[in-house]
């Protein structure tokens, strides 16, 4: 009772990266709170999957296994999560801020009338004293940028359980235990939780696309903002990235304007990256964006505005136009590299 639960997503028998990241974080929180870490997997043909979850620190693994439960559909998964949470009364429940998690978690929070904080960038344990003098010990501090990333808010959920949060992929570290110890599997009685009406939405066709663009692992990222000006101008960034052996990223403003694909978006609503070198081209540097790249080992900003906020976190800020600067960088790189 009162443990930490992580809803683990699977696709074709593989656990999603974001779920393993949440287990890593959950294990740290469980240690602080001196409670157990429990994983919940809902799908089909799951047996065996628990080993991977033990490796990331799950003490108890709940499996809801039924052919109707894969692929994911909102209503049956909601019924199981809500039913299990009513039985087990977790104090904290974590979900990936994925398409699936952002479909499921709000529905669960509404059914349980508990709060939910989306897209947390940090989760901590802390105390709180409200204005009436009530004291709360060991709350989950759910920290996230808000207002387009211009403020950082710490959200708490003093009186309702579970305290629920979603976190995007790549935000938390993923780390296996040095010595994993086997935990306990609990097979759930699916029919206790789901009703026939939960299957009213039918999936006619599903087409998964392999993730073609993966900027998360790139050692060098050349990223463009709204200041790049057009999709065509992004070609220049692709050229530099290809010469340096990197990938192309983009700010939300550039993606919203249609200059780059969403898969390339860096920042709070995109991916979080920590490359060796991050070159920010025509990016003003709103927190929405910098939240996802400020841990880069080196940051170079190219901007025609000397006062762009990005310059304040850049190691080098180049004042100039991309169409001049990038070709020169390529030229002098080629001239000086072996």
């Amino acid at each position, binding site marked *: 009772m009162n443990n930490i639960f992580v809803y683990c997503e699977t696709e074709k028998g593989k656990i999603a990266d974001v779920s393993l990241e949440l287990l890593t974080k959950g294990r740290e929180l469980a240690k602080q709170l001196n409670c157990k870490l429990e994983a919940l997997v809902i799908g089909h043909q799951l047996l065996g999957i628990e080993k991977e979850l033990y490796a990331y620190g799950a003490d108890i693994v709940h499996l809801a296994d039924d052919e109707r439960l894969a692929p994911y559909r909102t209503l049956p998964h909601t019924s199981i999560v809500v039913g299990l949470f009513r039985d087990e009364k977790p104090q904290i429940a974590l979900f990936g801020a994925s398409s699936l998690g952002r479909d499921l978690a709000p*529905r669960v929070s509404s059914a349980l009338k508990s709060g939910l904080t989306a897209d947390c960038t940090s989760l901590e344990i802390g105390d709180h004293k409200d204005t009436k003098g009530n004291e709360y010990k060991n709350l989950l501090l759910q920290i996230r940028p808000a207002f387009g990333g211009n403020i950082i808010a710490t959200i708490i959920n003093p009186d309702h359980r579970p305290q629920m949060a979603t976190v995007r992929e790549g935000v938390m570290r993923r780390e296996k235990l040095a010595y994993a110890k086997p935990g306990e599997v609990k097979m759930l009685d699916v029919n206790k939780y789901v009703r026939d009406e939960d299957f009213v939405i039918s999936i006619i066709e599903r087409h998964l696309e392999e993730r073609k663009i993966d900027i998360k692992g790139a050692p060098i990222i050349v990223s463009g903002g709204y200041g790049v000006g057009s999709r065509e101008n992004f070609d220049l960034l692709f050229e530099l990235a290809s010469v340096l052996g990197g990938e192309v990223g983009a700010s939300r403003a550039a993606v919203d304007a249609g200059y780059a694909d969403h898969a390339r978006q860096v920042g709070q609503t995109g991916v979080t990256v920590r490359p060796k070198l991050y070159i920010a081209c025509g990016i003003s540097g709103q927190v929405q964006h910098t939240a996802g790249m400020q841990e880069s080992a080196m940051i170079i900003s190219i901007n025609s505005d000397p006062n762009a906020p990005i310059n304040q976190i850049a190691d080098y800020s180049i004042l100039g136009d991309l169409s001049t600067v990038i070709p020169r960088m390529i030229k002098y790189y080629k001239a000086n590299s072996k």
Partner: protein
Amino acid sequence: MTKPLKIVVLAKQVPDTRNVGKDAMTAEGTVNRAALPAIFNPEDLHALELALRLKDSNPGTTVELLTMGPGRAADIIREGLFRGADGGILLTDRKFAGADTLATSYAIACAIKKIKPDLIVAGRQAIDGDTAQVGPQVAEKLGLPQITYVEEVFSCENNRIAVLRRLEHGVETVEGKLPLVLTVNASAPSCRPRNAKCLMKYKHAKTVSELQTQDGDYIEFHQLRSYLNIPEWGVSDIDGEEEQFGLKGSPTKVKAIKNVVFQVKESKKLSDADTDMESLMKELIANHTIG
């Protein structure tokens, strides 16, 4: 024959957080929220377009906007009317203030119960909070299924709807039975522009509160044209438990807000001159950052 539908579009007025210009920054480097323009939440416009297309293909269908906010949020309803909606309701009451997503969903769900639509369409998320919670939570409160991340409607006949969902790593075609809640992605078709006829017809659309500052002749002109009235609903107009509205009904509390201030770190300033570019690239190669 497919019967005409009654569609409600959920829309929100939001501060334009996407392009925070210098004018909206304070001397301390924080954002002055009051200086940001208030706009129609972008994905809600995609939701409106999806509803208007269903209306185009199914004569007799009506599209009504529902928004919650302060009095000035009536702008959102007018904008919707100018683009082809048939009406709109403004949910406004001090008792709604301070609502988190759960209390917001509760108020909206109570209003929808009164409207009794066949289909509810909302944008996936609003740009001021980016939570994407209200759509699914409204669906849960109404006991209706939800289909999120909709990009396209393939068919909507005989109370069944088939749509394409755009997910992170692929697409899904799903089918469901009305009534239900759809949330719409920015990848769905953009909203049509204002229509000149609609603009003429609805430019004087106003709420009762807005009429209070007008003179008698104007009010009379207004009262003769009932379609110009934008209804305002407060807590007493919708059937709900008062403790579930606003701040009281919000399980999440804001413990602390930190304005983001850009930390100045030592930054080398370079020009785009050949000499600067050459020494930079040499330095990066020398310290193994590149190459």
